[in-house]
């Protein structure tokens, strides 16, 4: 079973890389981009077959390593 984890910066945490991307997009003529927030995407291939157990396990991974909850949020998709 696959878990897909999206890690994003929390609201209120400045994202200078996102700002730089926004400026670059604007310089390329892509107008109308109000804001850019950059994050990470992590794909996990799990041996677990029970969806609930997989969710619990990946949540623990996010808290312990994959995200830094001081500055980041995480969202998990399992299928």
């Amino acid at each position, binding site marked *: 079973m696959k878990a897909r984890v999206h890690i994003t910066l929390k609201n*209120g945490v400045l994202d200078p*890389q996102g700002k*730089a991307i926004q400026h670059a997009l604007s310089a390329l003529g892509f107008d109308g981009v109000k804001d850019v927030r950059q994050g990470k995407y992590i794909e996990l291939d799990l041996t677990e077959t029970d969806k609930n157990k997989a969710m619990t396990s990946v949540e623990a991974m996010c808290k312990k390593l994959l995200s830094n909850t001081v*500055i980041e949020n995480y969202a998990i998709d399992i299928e």
Partner: protein
Amino acid sequence: MKTAVIIFPASNCDRDMIIALEKITGHKPHIIWHQNTNIPEVDLIALPGGFSFGDYLRCGAMAARSPVTKKVIEHADRGGKVIGICNGFQILTETGLLPGALMRNESLKFICKDVNLRVENNDTPFTNAYKKDQIITIPIAHHDGNYFADEDTLAALEEEGRVAFRYVDDKGQPTKDANPNGSRNNIAGIISRRKNILGMMPHPERLIEDAQGGTDGLGFFKSIINAIN
């Protein structure tokens, strides 16, 4: 004073730290490779600068979960002294031993230059050889030194006198221009609530003898000796 320096893959300021500790304490520090979880009993553990584990995932994230780091946390929990310089500071925040996080510099650039620091609190084991509000010049060399903590944490750090060093201009003012990396409240270094752990982005170990261009970093190490002896 007995000391230990932990070396992770891609630490690169360990030699400077070892030389500084040997010169100042008169004893060679124990040099601990990260796979060795036997840290002898020491007064001080130093986490040096560098790019441990290639800065994979987040700076310091891998080193913070390394088995040797568990021993560092145990040492800190017993009240033992720990310093983390640059990547060492990033590792300490990733372990939770120090609050906040070090984010990408606001300019997105790697910055390598001398900066002015103001000694905010000289009643700590790491700053007692300096005068309060003394301005010292210490080099920085980092890509991710932008200190972030939420408002409540910042307020607590300020109230409890846990900001050790702040980036300031030549007049000693913490201006926006004097802030090299976007750190909140111009914070360059902080200490733990029990005052036994310090993390800072600048490198005092790089300024301990005249041949290095100055000795402003000496006071940092002398402070630790004062505190331990």
